[in-house]
């Protein structure tokens, strides 16, 4: 499989993964410009390509993108955009954490919706017995643990049987989505409403707002988590071990790292953070979960996690941009009489253009890579030899 295959052992004295970051690389372009091109270029290209498709469908792209700005920033809309950032940032934190180890957790949708269903179901019961602040804290924990538990099977299969985690996490996502439906239509359904959904929380039972705004405090949780994840990944031994594992699994074994345990840890943390994302969204905005919903936030976050080069802090501006795109996009797609899934197309295009930039970057020797050091290095070595 991908990660075990022919990445040669690093030189013992200067491990590659350290050299990768600390030694300055020669580059024809200045660093800031380089970063700008690699970070923003794919997004701009995707928006242009999306605009061409809009033209082909007989819609006016200028109006469309103008509507996005209007619907996402002006008047009060920026507050919605900030609120949308909360779950996206938490998912991004979970993905950055595990992608650093070069492990693919693609089961985010299942982890998210299952956690959402669990807390939406338990919230009314819990709040009837406990103080609101205590039950909110407990619900965040329940969501996190649910998300983490949903990664256990892929984690164990990956660590102990070497089964490809891409496949297993995808399978668990589909099971998780159906299971969330079973819960929402079954034990958690509000019997007083015809449409299958959980009992809605009263406004007093939701996350409190930041004073003088409509923005709930989930965004503060998200920023705190981003800072913690960034600290852990860059300043602690756990972060270093994850990077070693991502750079070269064989080096990790030789360095005496408990690889199996590390894999399971990475999965659990990732699932936990994605669960928190569900808590922020449900307790902050909705207050209930309806059957057959899939927010698909994870799909949207993936390209930005790569564009930020797996750096938790760099994810923030990208997520802010996508939040604007998605909040404003709801209005814009409605005005253009198109389904909101049009935004998915833009996300896919960003990923494609990112890959292309990666290719030309390798050719022209632009700076670092979106991908983990080990993978990028193997690719670069091949490109140089070619």
């Amino acid at each position, binding site marked *: 499989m991908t990660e075990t295959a022919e990445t040669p052992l690093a030189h013992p004295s200067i491990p590659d993964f350290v050299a990768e970051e600390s030694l300055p690389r020669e580059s024809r372009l200045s660093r800031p410009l380089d970063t700008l091109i690699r970070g923003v270029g794919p997004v701009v290209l995707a928006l242009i390509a999306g605009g061409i498709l809009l033209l082909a469908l007989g819609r006016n792209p200028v109006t469309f993108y103008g509507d996005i700005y209007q619907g996402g920033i002006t008047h009060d809309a920026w507050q919605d955009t900030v609120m949308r950032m909360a779950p996206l940032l938490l998912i991004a934190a979970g993905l950055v954490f595990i992608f650093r180890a070069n492990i*693919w957790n693609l089961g985010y949708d299942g982890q998210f919706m299952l956690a959402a269903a669990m807390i939406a179901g338990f919230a009314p019961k819990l709040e009837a017995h406990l103080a609101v602040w205590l039950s909110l804290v407990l619900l965040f924990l329940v969501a996190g643990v649910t998300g983490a538990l949903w990664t256990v099977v892929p984690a164990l299969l990956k660590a102990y049987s070497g089964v490809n985690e891409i496949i297993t996490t995808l399978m668990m996502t*589909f099971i998780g989505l159906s299971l969330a439906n079973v819960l929402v239509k079954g034990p958690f359904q509000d019997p007083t409403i015809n449409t299958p959904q959980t009992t809605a929380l009263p406004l007093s039972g939701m996350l409190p707002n930041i004073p003088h705004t409509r923005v709930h405090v989930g965004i503060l949780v998200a920023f705190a988590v981003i800072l913690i994840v960034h600290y852990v990944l860059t300043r602690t031994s756990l972060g270093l071990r994850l990077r070693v594992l991502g750079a070269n699994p064989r080096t990790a074994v030789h360095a005496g790292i408990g690889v199996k345990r590390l894999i399971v840890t990475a999965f659990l943390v990732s699932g936990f953070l994605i669960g928190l994302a569900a808590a922020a969204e449900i307790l902050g905005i909705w207050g209930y979960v309806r059957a057959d919903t899939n927010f698909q936030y994870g799909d949207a976050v993936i390209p930005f996690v790569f564009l930020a080069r797996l750096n938790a802090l760099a994810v923030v501006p990208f997520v802010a941009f996508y939040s604007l795109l998605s909040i404003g996009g709801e209005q814009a797609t409605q005005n253009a009489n198109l389904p909101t899934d049009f935004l*998915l*197309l833009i996300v896919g295009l960003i990923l494609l253009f990112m890959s292309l930039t990666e290719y030309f970057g390798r050719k022209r020797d632009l700076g670092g890579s979106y991908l983990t050091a080990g993978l990028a290095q193997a690719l670069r070595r091949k490109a140089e030899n070619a």
Partner: protein
Amino acid sequence: MHELLKQAVLTALVSGALVAGVPLMFTSLGELISERAGVLNIGLEGMMLFGAYAGFVGAYYGHSSWLGYLTGIAGGTFIALFMVVFCVWLGLDQIVVGIALTIGAEGVTSTLDGAQFSTTRPRLGSVPTVSIPGLSHISVIGPSVFSQPLVVYLGLALVGLVAWIFRSTNVGLNLRAAGEKPEALDAAGVSVLATRSWAALCAGALAGLGGAYLSIAGAGVFVPFMTQGRGFMGIVLAMLARGRPIWVIIGSLLFGISLSITTALQLAGINIPIDYAFMLPFVAVMLALIIFGRRSYLPPALALPYLRGSR
């Protein structure tokens, strides 16, 4: 009454298994070809979905299911073309591009469908079937099993053809070498890139055909996101088939049965929520992976770009 009910249940189970299993069969056969040649096709879901859309559009405007299958194949191949250029020629990450293609295809099909059909929601008529004389008169299962659209028989023949190609032809040997040891293939004077390109295009064509079957013969209508993870299931099936095409048929039928079992049970008066039905095939896959996980086989050069002269 009991006898009649039993027949209805059995018919529903068997015909449902075929309707659900045939698209899986096409798709995982395609994935098997490309996996053996070393291209891991995470974008299979997107190819299938685009094939379903293109197939529906072709069948709807061309008034012919055959034209629909052709446009479905073309649609799947079109998405696979991205895979070929980005991953085989430029050597980019197959997983990132695969995810991009799946997400992009979800977006583009849903957008186009919304722009064209959101107000009309047209449906296709039923597809003519071909009955095998004799066999189709067997009571109960005869009419449901041996009376199928022609494309199903062609699909079965295709599986046999692919098995034969892999076992006894030079082309099959080249394909296998491209996944096992691309350097050796290159040294033998055969282009690895060309071999892998054709394999990836075949995967796209077959996934597109599978998607087209889903929308034309299966549902009679295109619905956004209608593949519901069948492309990913196809990847697992190809993995578990360990490179042997015949196992693709068996696997697809087993998954077809697990997809259709709720309808059958509902006919029998046992009411099971539809969500369990959606869950069942994926649970089956996970169980299969837990039990046979160690034994699933993937070629050593899978998902690694081949660049000439590199080690």
